[in-house]
């Protein structure tokens, strides 16, 4: 891809991470590791891959992004603000009373949020509904669903995987945040998911594994594949939870907590150089 474009996206991802640390510190609670790990994917989507219009959030032909693991919403809120869906200043209201930025995303609260999520395993089903509506209305939009690896332990998710495979929903892309952590620890210790790729293949999906922190690879893979398949597409994106902040990376204890001021200063120093 174009070098200047790539540089611009990398800068945006770095900016998003700094905004994330600031908003989570201000909120005093929330999830840090997942959003930092997924920053490169969200930036690639909102600033390159998605067809969308912040001035007309309900534009009928827009691509849809359904966030299934609602707890990583701080990175979605950050990208929506950076894309001018609402003022950047509002990020400081995350999780506070009278805010549009709910602890887990609520469709009717904030422009750009396609649906409500938080309880795990429900996003892919909702994305399927959005996809089916597009088919009935003869629209060409693509539906993206972002799901965590831990939520693959929910039965509902596999009900949805089965449905999409059976119905060959080839305008549906699911990106799995394969960061190997969940609240209690490492996913493979809590409840093993591997072999994950093979599971999807068996359920009649096309599957690709990528480095989810490499913007060039994210974009090239999605652009090259997703219009040339006749099955739903699963992208297993290997990401580093807490990416960009040395003392957070790969530490499951950062799954569900926010940095204090001291930790935030340290994190921002590290992120300033990236």
């Amino acid at each position, binding site marked *: 891809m174009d070098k200047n474009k790539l540089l611009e996206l990398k800068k945006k991802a770095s900016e998003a991470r700094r905004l994330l640390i600031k908003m989570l510190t201000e909120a005093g609670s929330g999830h840090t590791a997942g959003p930092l790990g997924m920053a490169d994917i969200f930036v690639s989507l909102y600033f390159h891959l998605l067809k969308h219009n912040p001035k007309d959030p309900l534009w009928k032909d827009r691509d*849809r992004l*359904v966030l299934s693991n609602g707890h990583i919403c701080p990175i979605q809120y950050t990208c929506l603000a950076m894309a001018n869906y609402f003022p950047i200043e509002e990020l400081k209201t995350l999780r506070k009373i009278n805010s549009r930025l709910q602890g887990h995303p*609520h*469709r*009717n609260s904030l422009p750009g949020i*396609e*649906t*409500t*999520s*938080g*309880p795990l*395993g*429900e*996003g892919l*089903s*909702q*994305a*399927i*509904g*959005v*996809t*089916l*509506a*597009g088919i*009935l*209305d003869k629209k060409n939009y693509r539906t993206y669903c972002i799901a965590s690896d831990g939520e693959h332990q929910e*039965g*509902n998710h596999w*009900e*949805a995987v*089965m*449905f999409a495979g059976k119905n060959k929903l080839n305008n549906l892309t699911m990106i799995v945040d394969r960061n190997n952590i969940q609240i209690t620890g490492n996913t493979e210790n809590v409840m093993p998911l591997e072999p994950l790729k093979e599971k999807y293949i068996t359920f009649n999906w096309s599957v690709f594994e990528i480095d989810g922190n490499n913007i060039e690879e994210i974009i090239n893979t999605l652009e090259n594949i997703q219009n040339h398949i006749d099955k739903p597409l699963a992208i297993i994106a290997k990401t580093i939870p807490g990416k960009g902040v040395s003392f957070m990376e790969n530490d499951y204890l950062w799954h569900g907590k926010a940095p204090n001021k001291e930790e935030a200063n340290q994190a921002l120093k590290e992120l300033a150089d990236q």
Partner: protein
Amino acid sequence: MLNQNLKLNPEIFDENVEKAPTRDGFGKGILELGKEDKNVVCLSADLSESTRNEEFAKKFPDRYFECGVAEQNMAAIAAGLAVSGKIPFISSYSVFSPGKNWETIRTTIIYNNANVKIAGHHAGIVTGQDGVTHQATEDIASVRAWPNVNIICPCDSIEAKKATIYSGQNQGPFYLRFSREKTPIITTNETKFDFNKIQIFWESQNPKVAIFATGHMVYQALVAADELKKENIEVLVANITTLKPIDEQTIVKLAKKCGKVVTCEDHQTEGGLGGIIAEILAREFPSPMEFIGLKNTFAESGTANELMNKYGLDKNSIKTAVKKLIQK
């Protein structure tokens, strides 16, 4: 006597009164909606025949989605369809939907304010021989605490069709409660369907007890009222089709008029219609009450009539309750 203004079935008290399951009315309702509006879609979880989705599926195959035995998936797919402008009806047995998928519905349909209609079939002990696992008797209690949900429990098949059509033509989440067993036809096509207005089906000059009934229990209440009349006991019977939003004004008015109240439902009395009426009257007009319904117990396998008799959901139990109140 029967309220003549409502054009109710004049043969209601005949021994051979026509019967049909309320689920049949649902099937006719979705078919009519499907013809009217191409945004109406139906989803079922491997129960298309018994939830009366088959005709819709045949007529509109592109708008029917078979979800397999996966009620959570069905509910959340419907939410996705609804936020994209469709009007989905999801069907299964009430025990499974909104039972098994309760939280999925809470999050993706109710809190999301998605325009989904939840059709819960096989409600009540009249489900019969399948037994307790398939008899939904806590569904009203478990969904009515949701903000923003509309709940309709039609008294017969004709009203069920009208309620289905009403829900499809009006925005917002609805829970529609249907039963499997054939039950007597109480209303006619000419009877007006009034969504959030309670209708008085049986009136008396000087009623001493107001009977509030929902679903097929309205028939038991009417038969009880007719028999009580022969014993010179005057009551009135109100059909509570819409359980939420509830017509509070009429409930209070009728309680004031009669002074005593009996509630009748094929459901646990805790949290069901009995609970609804008691909550209102405790605040507005505390009244002596009797509750007809399941009382802190599950039922069992058996025919509908056997179960209604054994668990006190029949006309005789209603008559006894009325007499008990009058003697107080």
